[in-house]
C-alpha cells in the first residue's frame, strides 16, 4: 500500500483545473504570492518527514488574514483541497502536500502580538517560532513550557495542530495544557474563537478538540498561550546503569518517592555512544542505559530533591550518579540528549524515528521485544525515551540506497507501534499520525471509533477539503491494511510501489 495519497483507498479527490484556480486566486487576491512553477514548488514537496514527497498543485504564501480567508473561500467554492503548513518541521508528514491541493503556508504570520506579563499570556500569530515566545517572555521572568526538540524552528500553529510535546511534559503538560485560546478560520472562511482569555469558556471544549487535530478541522490564525514563571533553578543528575531494566525500575522509584522531575530521559547504549561521539557530553559509554533527571523549582526544594533522587537511584542499582556541577555541565548533559537524533544519524546513512507511548511498567518487555525485532529485520535500533511520560523514540538505522532496507525499516517501525498498542499504549505520543502512521491507526482504533472520528470531521468540514488523507484512515484503507496483515509476507497488489 502506497503511503502517498491513494484515491483508491483514501477517497477520490475533486479534479482541479489549475489554471482556473490560479485565475480565481489572482482575480480575488491580487497581492497574494502564489508559487506555481515546478521549480518553485519543489522546496515544499515534504515536511520534516522527507522520505515522503508530493509536489503540491500550488503554494500560497499569504501575508494578511484577509488573504487566508480569501484563499479558503476560493478553494471552498472550487472544491480544492487545502493543506496548511507552518515551519514544515513535523515528523509525521502532517503537512505533506497533495498534487490536487493547495499548500497554504502560514509561516509569514510571525508576529508576537502582545505579551501580558500580569496575566501571564502571550498572543501570537501562528507562524511564530516556539522558542521565540520564550525569548520574548524572558525579560518578564516568564516562559512558554512545551519545548519540542525542534523548538528553534517549529511554529506555534504547527504545535497546536499536532499537540506538540517535549522533554518536560510530565510536569508541565503538552501543548493542550498550555494554550488558552485559538482563533481559526473554518473551511468556509468563517472566523471562530475557541477557548478564551479566561481559564474556561461556555459550551463544548472545542479548544481541546482542535488541539492535535492536524489541520483537518480548521486553519489556525492566532494563538494565546499561557506563560509560566521561570523556575528559580534547575539541576541535572546523570545516572548510569548496567541494565535497561534497572534504569526503568529507577524511574518508577523516583515517582514512588513523590517526586515529579522537570525532565526524565533515558538512553540505551547505542544512543549513549552515538551522542558521546558527537557531543562529548561526558556520558559513560559502557553503561547499558543512562537516566537524565532534571529537578527544577525553588532552590531549597531542588536541593532536597536532588539528595532524595540520588538515594533512590543508588538504591535502584545505579553504578554511578553524577550531578552537573555547574550550568555549563548541565547544558552539556542535555546537549547529548537533545542531539541524540542527529548523533544516531551519524552512525547510519538514514534513520527512522518512531514515537510510540507505553505504560512505563511495560518498558523492559517492550525493549526486549524491540531487540528481537531488530535482529529479525537485520536493522539496528537505538532507543531514546522520555521515561517520565512513557514516550519512546526508537530510532531505526538503515540505508535507503540498499534495496529493500527502507521497506524493512518501515515494516519494523510498524511492528514496534503495534507492540505499543498491544501493551496499552499509543502509536504516537507527540509527533502526530499525519500520513506516516495512517495505517497503524487501524491497529489502535476499531471501525466504530474511526466512524466517530469521521463524524467529527463531518461536523466541521463535510466536504473533506482540509488536509484529506491525514490523521484518520478511511475504513477502506483499514480493511485493506487488515487484509495485508492476514496474508503476512504475501502482500496484495505486489505491483504497487511501496515507499
Amino acid at each position, binding site marked *: 500500500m502506497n503511503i502517498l495519497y491513494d484515491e483508491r483507498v483514501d477517497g477520490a479527490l475533486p479534479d482541479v483545473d489549475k489554471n482556473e484556480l490560479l485565475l480565481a486566486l489572482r482575480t480575488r487576491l491580487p497581492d497574494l504570492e502564489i508559487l506555481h512553477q515546478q521549480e518553485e514548488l519543489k522546496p515544499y514537496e515534504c515536511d520534516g518527514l522527507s522520505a515522503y514527497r508530493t509536489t503540491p498543485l500550488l503554494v500560497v504564501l499569504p501575508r494578511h488574514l484577509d488573504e487566508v480567508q480569501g484563499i479558503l473561500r476560493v478553494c471552498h467554492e472550487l472544491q480544492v483541497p487545502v493543506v496548511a503548513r507552518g515551519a514544515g518541521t513535523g515528523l509525521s508528514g502532517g503537512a505533506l502536500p497533495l498534487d490536487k491541493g493547495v499548500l497554504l503556508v502560514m509561516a509569514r504570520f510571525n508576529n508576537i502580538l502582545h505579551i501580558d*506579563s*500580569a496575566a*501571564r*499570556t502571550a498572543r501570537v500569530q501562528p507562524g511564530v517560532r516556539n522558542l521565540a515566545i520564550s525569548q520574548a517572555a524572558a525579560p518578564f*521572568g*516568564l516562559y512558554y513550557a512545551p519545548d519540542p526538540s525542534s523548538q528553534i524552528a517549529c511554529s506555534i500553529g504547527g504545535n497546536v495542530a499536532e*499537540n506538540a510535546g517535549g522533554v518536560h511534559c510530565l510536569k508541565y*503538560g503538552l501543548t493542550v*495544557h498550555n494554550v488558552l485560546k485559538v482563533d481559526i478560520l*473554518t473551511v468556509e472562511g468563517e472566523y*471562530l474563537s475557541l477557548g*478564551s*482569555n*479566561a*481559564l*474556561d*469558556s*461556555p*459550551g*463544548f*471544549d*472545542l479548544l481541546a478538540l482542535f488541539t*492535535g*487535530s492536524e489541520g483537518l478541522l480548521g486553519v489556525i490564525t492566532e494563538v494565546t498561550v499561557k506563560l509560566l*514563571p521561570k*523556575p528559580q533553578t534547575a539541576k541535572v543528575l546523570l545516572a548510569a546503569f548496567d541494565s535497561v531494566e534497572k534504569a526503568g525500575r529507577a524511574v*518508577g*522509584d523516583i*515517582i514512588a518517592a*513523590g517526586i515529579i522531575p522537570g525532565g526524565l530521559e533515558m538512553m540505551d547504549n547505542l544512543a549513549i555512544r552515538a551522542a558521546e561521539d558527537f557531543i562529548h557530553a561526558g556520558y559513560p559509554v559502557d553503561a547499558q542505559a543512562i537516566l537524565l533527571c532534571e529537578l527544577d*523549582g*525553588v532552590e531549597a*526544594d531542588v*536541593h*532536597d530533591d536532588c539528595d532524595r533522587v540520588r538515594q533512590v537511584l543508588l538504591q535502584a542499582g545505579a553504578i554511578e550518579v553524577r550531578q552537573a556541577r555547574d550550568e555549563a555541565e548541565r547544558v552539556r548533559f542535555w546537549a547529548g540528549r537533545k542531539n541524540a537524533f542527529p548523533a544516531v544519524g551519524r552512525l547510519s546513512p538514514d534513520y527512522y524515528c518512531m514515537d510510540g*507511548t507505553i*505504560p*512505563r*511498567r511495560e518498558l523492559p518487555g517492550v525493549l526486549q521485544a524491540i531487540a528481537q525485532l531488530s535482529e529479525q529485520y537485520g536493522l539496528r535500533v537505538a532507543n531514546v525515551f*522520555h521515561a*517520565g511520560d512513557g*514516550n519512546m523514540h526508537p530510532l531505526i538505522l538503515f540505508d535507503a540506497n540498499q534495496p529493500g532496507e527502507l521497506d524493512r525499516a518501515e515494516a519494523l517501525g510498524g511492528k514496534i507501534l503495534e507492540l505499543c498498542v498491544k501493551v*496499552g*499504549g*499509543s502509536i504516537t*505520543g*507527540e509527533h*502526530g*499520525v499525519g500520513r506516516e502512521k495512517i495505517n497503524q*491507526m487501524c491497529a*489502535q*482504533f476499531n471501525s*466504530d*471509533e474511526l*466512524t*466517530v*472520528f469521521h463524524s*467529527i470531521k*463531518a*461536523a466541521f468540514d463535510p466536504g473533506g477539503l482540509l488536509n484529506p488523507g491525514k490523521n484518520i484512515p478511511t475504513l477502506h484503507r483499514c480493511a485493506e491494511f487488515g487484509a495485508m496483515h492476514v496474508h503476512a509476507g504475501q502482500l496484495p497488489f505486489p505491483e504497487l510501489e511501496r515507499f
Partner: protein
Amino acid sequence: MRGADDVDDSLVLLEQVNQALENATPLRIQGSNSKAFLGRTTAGEILDTRSHRGIVSYDPTELVITARCGTPLTELAEVLDAAQQMLPCEPPSFGDNATVGGMIACGLSGPRRPWSGSVRDFVLGTRVISGQGKLLRLGGEVMKNVAGYDLSRLMAGSYGCLGVITEVSLKVLPKPRQCLSISLEMNSERALLQLAQWGQQPLPISAACHDGERLHLRLEGGEGSVKAAHERLGGQWLEDSYWGDLNEHRLNFFDEDQPLWRLSLPHNTPRLSLPGRQLVDWGGAQRWLKSDAEAAFIRQVVDEVGGHVTCFSHGLCDTPFQPLPPTLLRYHRNLKQQLDPRGIFNPGRLYAEL
C-alpha cells in the same frame, strides 16, 4: 484493588441506550444527581450510571487511575490518599455521593485549578457509549497520546450531551510534601494587584481566595519553598479545611438567599463593579457573585472584560450557561447532530438548541 461493590455494568447501560435509540426516547443521564442544579432542566428517561462502578486499575508509579463512571468520588479520593497521591484539580462534589462520571461531565475544578490545570487537563482517556449505540474506547492510559481526535477531553464539561461516559482514566500526582494555609488582611483591589505580581514569580501558591476582607493563600511544595514563602508573606495561620469549605460552597458567603453566579475571567481582571457581594477565587480568574441583578446586566459587564457567566441557582434563567455567538453555536449543533443524531443524550441540558 477490587472493592465489594465493583460491578461492570456497561452492557446494561449500553442496552438501555440502544433501547432509547430504537424508541427515540431522550435520556437523562445521572449519577447521584448532586449537580442536577447546574444547567437547564431536561425531561427524559433516567439513565442511572451508579451501578457501573469500581476502580478498574491504579498503579501509583504510573500516575494513572482508571475508574468506572458510577464510582463515588469519595472512593477515588480514599484510594489515592492511601498512596499519598491526589487528583490535583480538586473537583467539587456538591453532595456526599457524587460520582466520577458526573465529575467529568460537569468538568468543575477546585481552588488549585489555575496552578494545576482543570478536570479536562487530567483526562487521559474515556470509554463512552456513542449516539450510534457503540461502546468506544477513546484516548488511553498514557500521558502522551495524540492519535486521532481528542474526544476524551471533549467529553469533560459536555454535561452528558455527547454520549454516556462509562469509564475514565485520569492522570494523578503525588501530594505535595508540605501544605500551609495563611490569611492576610487587605482589600480586594490590593489583593488582585498583589496576586498578579506574585503570579510572575516562582512562589509555591496553590490556592488564592479573597473574601472581601482577607486574602487567603495556600502554599504547597517542598519544606524549603513553603517555609521561605511563609517567611516572606507572613500572615495568620489558616485551617486547611478552608479550601474544602470554599470548594463545596460551605462558606457563609454561599448561605445568603440571593442567586449565585459564577464569573470566569481573564487573569488580572480588576475588581468588577456589580451589585451584590463577590468572592474572589482562582487568584482572580473565578469569582462568585451573590446578586439580584439581571442576568443580561451581569453578562454584559463580564463580557466586556472577556469573561463569561454561569448561573448556579437552579431554574433562575433559561440559559444558565452564557449564550454562544451564532457561528460557534452552529458548529456546536453540527457536532451534537453528528455525535448524537437521534438527540437522546441530555437534550437541552447545556443549551436549548443542543
